């Protein structure tokens, strides 16, 4: 049936389209902030946290620019692992890498107030994402070849 040919060609085109989307997004600079980050406060057993959740669709190289005094901590929201921490006194401009797509939590775990903004300057799909795109693309291509080969008979 031509249906399978159309379906598999479409998925193959979608694979190529995804790669094109990633390549055009690679150098796309996006920014978040500035955010005002008061320190985490603990009064007795009550904790008050002001946080920012950042979402990135790829792994990203982020340039942070912070003013004030404090400790900027970045955590992976899903696993709770710390990705980066940086002590800021006065002004700091530094870079860190968000290892994969997903959500990241930013808090100020210091004692004084901070203002931070983030620029996402390089965005690359992770190895897992590349494996998924190329792997599925290969499967679609092989199945399409099979379908076309059967048409000839």
């Amino acid at each position, binding site marked *: *049936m031509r249906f399978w040919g159309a379906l598999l060609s*479409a998925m193959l085109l*979608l694979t190529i389209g995804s790669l094109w989307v990633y390549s055009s997004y690679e150098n796309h600079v996006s920014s978040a902030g500035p955010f005002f980050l008061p320190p985490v406060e603990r009064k007795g057993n009550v904790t008050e946290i*002001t946080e920012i959740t950042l979402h990135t669709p790829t792994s990203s190289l982020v340039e942070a620019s912070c003013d004030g005094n404090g400790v900027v901590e970045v955590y992976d929201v899903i696993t709770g692992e710390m990705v980066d921490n940086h002590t800021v006194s006065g002004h700091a401009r530094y870079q860190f890498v968000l290892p*994969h797509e997903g*959500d990241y*939590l930013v808090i100020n775990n210091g004692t004084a107030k901070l203002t931070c903004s983030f620029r996402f300057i390089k965005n690359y799909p*992770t190895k*897992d994402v590349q494996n998924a795109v190329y792997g599925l693309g290969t499967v679609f291509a092989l199945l399409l070849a099979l379908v076309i080969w059967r048409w000839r008979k």
Partner: protein
Amino acid sequence: MGRLKTLVKWEFNDVIKNVLFLFGLVLVGISMKKSIMDVNYIPGFASGTEIKLFGPSRAHGVAGEIHGMLYLSDVWTLMSFLILLLGALSFRYDRDSGVARSIYSLPYSNTEIFGVKLLSVLVYTVLMVLLPFAYVTLTSYASIAGYLPEITSSFLGDALVLVVFLVLYLISVATLTSLAAPNAFLAFIVGFAVIYAPRVTGSSEIPPQLFINAISRCGSTDFTPFTAQYIGWGILVPLALFAVSWILIKRRDVV
């Protein structure tokens, strides 16, 4: 069963419908992919004795992007367009081109032909929305794929039910207008008016806007798609329109 299989094969072998399916699937997929490619942020404040900051259910950014793909206005504009074309191609175009005279004179009842055509439109439409959705979700979030069921659990079930309601409504309008109209172009234009009038006039009480808004509300507290309004527009109205179409295809001559 072999009889019906031949009919199904014939229906899924149509060149124009398959070309439409190919382009529809690619366009829907790319617009979904483009929609998630941006950085966003949610400022938050938490206070209490035990604060839960981490875990898959807290990944609101990822959940929001995946959820957002299901109610993109680009996607549904394109989908209503393509569903109307699919309906006109399945139910009307074969009559315009004269092929229908041979098909309907074969030893199949009109009900069988109607059922198979409807099945083909349903399969094409559902695949055009859900296949790109699944593909983009799984490949874009491959590094955290294991957590996706938990991240999406709050909204996905309800949202998919509403997607099915919306698709059923659009298909039933396309089917009825195609069978009632005297030619394929007119069927398309009338269907287009029925589906776009609510959008143009801004009334969100009638589909498609009713369902698009509802999909975006899935996952919020005490929202459920199983209310009289959604079931009425998503199941009862389509069933009524399908019934009228069925009567039309049984009663009217193939002209």
